[in-house]
């Protein structure tokens, strides 16, 4: 009978948690490597339209982002017309030229011709402001652009 008694006394052996930090560190390193910090805090609504004939944005070349959309809930005081966001702030059409110049100045000289302007534009924006931005980009000779889109069926945009 003593056999059985012994077992009861022992109970469950505690789980060895010595390797827990190792596991957590492994996960941590994975996420540290995979993380791309959000470059800008968006102050606008930015739901991208869908398209299926898309190409990956080449990260080897420098990319600058221009956001256009209606101010989001917290920034309602700026009105409900679509606005341009450059870096972290709302901007006017006339600021686009300066923005491109600043982006170019921060690049190495040999990379300047490869600067791509990624236009992240909310799908509810009208083409007027987009056309103005495009015209402004033409004037500063920033001709490589990319309409950033989500991937999906393009015709589902039209409803």
């Amino acid at each position, binding site marked *: 009978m003593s056999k059985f008694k012994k077992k009861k006394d022992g109970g469950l052996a505690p789980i060895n*948690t010595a390797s*827990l*930090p190792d596991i*957590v*560190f492994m*996960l*941590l390193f994975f*996420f*540290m490597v*995979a*993380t*791309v*910090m*959000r470059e800008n805090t968006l102050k606008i609504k930015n739901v991208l*339209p*869908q*398209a*299926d*004939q*898309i*190409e*990956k*944005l080449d990260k080897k070349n420098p*990319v600058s982002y221009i956001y256009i959309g209606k101010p989001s809930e917290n920034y309602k005081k700026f009105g409900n017309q679509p606005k341009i966001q450059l870096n972290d702030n709302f901007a006017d059409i006339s600021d686009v030229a300066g923005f491109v110049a600043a982006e170019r100045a921060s690049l190495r000289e040999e990379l300047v011709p490869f600067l*791509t302007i*990624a236009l992240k*534009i*909310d*799908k*509810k*924006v*009208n*083409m*007027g402001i*987009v*056309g103005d931005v*495009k*015209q402004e*980009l*033409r*004037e500063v*000779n*920033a*001709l*490589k*652009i*990319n*309409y*950033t*889109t*989500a*991937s999906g069926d*393009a*015709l589902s*945009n*039209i409803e």
Partner: protein
Amino acid sequence: MAKRAAPEVNAGSMADIAFLLLIFFLVTTTIEKDSGINRKLPPIEENTEPPIIKQKNIFTVLVNKNNDLLVEDEPMEPKALRQAAIDFLDNNGDGSCKFCEGAKDPESSDNPDKAIISLKNDRETSYATYIAIQNELVAAYNVLRNRLALKLGPEKGFPNMNFLQMQDLHKDVRWNGNKEKLKALIDQIKKEIPQKLSEVVE
């Protein structure tokens, strides 16, 4: 000084610290999914004479403020645009294009090199519609380029590959085939079917 044994560091809270960092990175991670339609804007040239282009070589696409589509002065459903653009580009009116399979309609474009798609939008057109139209027009070019790639591929040593796959392969750094040959083929296809998409600026 008296010699003191170094006290053992308590590593019990290591897991907590690691967890804290882990959660921080979990929250800040945005898996980037940047992709889109690449376009090149036309440079601003001063007082250039517009080239004389035959009306039949121009395929006009107009999107009005209600996001309705007018193609060659006829209303059209967006679904039909891709095929209409393919028919126009592939028409081969003057018979100079060897790979075209079009109807050879004398009223439509001469050959893919001369065919121009002209896109005009209103200021009130929604961006979503504009992207959808752009997407359909790019798709039309891609359909034709894919077809040509499948035709030209075998004799150049790249069989069973369409144009998009060729482009992907060319960008793939792990692929160790003949990149120059592939680039030449891609450029040839691009030259045979150039993307001549003009946008009207008001």
